[in-house]
């Protein structure tokens, strides 16, 4: 794809390259800033994304001066609890890599075990290869990658999918980038039992949990994109809601926030329909009141019999 420029030897002292111009050229800063703005928290993740962007930029500069620029291995693993933004970051990663010219198309193909592993002998290889072909020129995102490997069943076809994956990860590095994602503890066990896979992944990125302030920010951002807003008392209710929800079982970070807001919208709609004797203003349609949030089971203190989502 990108060939070494034959001209310009490593010794050429006069050769210069303007990194800033190169960065402006690729517009990578826009994507990075977007990442900073759109995603709350996630400091280690953003730092790693910046590092990778810097590395690719330097590689480009080196190539311009005719220095040896082997394409670095960019396969990644994203580990973190549910709802910490693994898929969102993967999507943005595809765009960043595209801007920097590392992948040609910059699309994301998100798959799970079912898309890779077949039902019977001889079914797995074509299935996996099909997915890999579709992902070429972009990023292959394998969610909950540990399901690929089932140690309890030695005839499981997952191993076959892993082997094909490994081969392509090694030999066709500039055709696609593979991102494996999943919960931290199970991913660790997965990598321990597949050392070949672990050693081919250069970047292990951990997604930390959000704290209450970050979750509040996330919730407000979500409301904004849905064109809703909180009344002042509603904001107070949200601030009380978040720590309570965090203590409950099955807490899934940003996903729990989204679910909470979806249910608040439901209650708001119900409230508005109940008061239909008078016309509604634009403001009323947009505002979520404290009562919409406080009706949640989280406030009732009945956490014992709460289902997966209170």
């Amino acid at each position: 794809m990108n060939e070494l420029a034959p001209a310009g030897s490593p010794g050429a002292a006069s050769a210069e390259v303007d990194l800033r111009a190169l960065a402006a050229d690729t517009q990578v800063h826009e994507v990075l800033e977007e990442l900073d703005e759109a995603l709350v928290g996630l400091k280690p993740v953003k730092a790693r994304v910046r590092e990778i962007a810097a590395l690719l930029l330097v590689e480009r500069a080196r190539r311009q001066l005719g220095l040896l620029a082997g394409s670095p291995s960019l396969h990644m693993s994203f580990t973190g609890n549910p709802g910490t933004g693994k898929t969102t970051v993967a999507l943005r990663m595809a765009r960043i890599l595209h801007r920097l010219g590392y992948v040609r198309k910059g699309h994301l193909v998100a798959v799970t075990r079912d898309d890779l592993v077949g039902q019977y002998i001889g079914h797995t290889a074509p299935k996996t290869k099909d997915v890999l072909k579709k992902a070429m020129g972009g990023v292959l995102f394998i969610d909950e990658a540990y399901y690929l490997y089932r140690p309890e069943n030695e005839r499981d076809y997952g191993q076959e999918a892993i082997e094909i994956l490994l081969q392509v990860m090694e030999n066709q590095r500039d055709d696609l980038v593979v991102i494996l994602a999943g919960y931290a503890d199970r991913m660790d066990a997965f990598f321990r039992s597949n050392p070949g896979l672990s050693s081919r992944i250069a970047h292990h990125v951990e997604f930390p949990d959000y704290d209450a302030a970050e979750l509040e920010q996330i919730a407000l951002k979500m409301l904004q994109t849905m064109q809703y807003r909180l009344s002042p008392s509603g904001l107070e209710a949200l601030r009380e809601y978040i720590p309570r929800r965090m203590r409950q079982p099955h807490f899934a970070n940003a996903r729990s926030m989204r679910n909470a807001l979806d249910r608040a919208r439901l209650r708001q709609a119900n409230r508005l329909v109940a008061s239909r004797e008078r016309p509604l203003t634009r403001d009323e349609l947009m505002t979520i009141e404290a009562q919409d949030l406080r009706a949640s089971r989280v406030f009732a203190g009945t956490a014992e019999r709460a289902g997966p989502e209170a």
Partner: protein
Amino acid sequence: MRITQGTFSFLPDLTDAQILAQLRYALAQGWAISIETTDDPHPRNCYWDMWGNPLFDLRDAAGVMQEVNACRRAHPNGYVRVNAFDSTRGFETTRLSFIVSRPSDEPGFALTRTEDAGRRIRYTIASYAAGAPEGRRYRSRDGDVG
């Protein structure tokens, strides 16, 4: 005799880089690419064997090239062509079709003349290669089967 079928067939054989560029163009147009192979070079032979299913939903040509190379390896002495199908209403047909691999030695065709009523002559051609049964044509010296 070099057979000339499909697009670019009067040009020298395309290099892999040129094939990739053509594939990239076809994908950019939103055409679905399929790969076919045969060992019967007759110009009226329009039913070539499919190499796997047509490759739908691809974004990048690298995936197609992988299949082309796999097909070449399996048929080192046969013909391999790439078709690009346009599903747009009004077209719904193959928009591009070109040979990407051919036998190293193409013996050409015999012209047979048949005398018909009133001393009319009817002509037909038959490939020298197609004399052997399918799968045993274009045997190369090292015993590969095309």
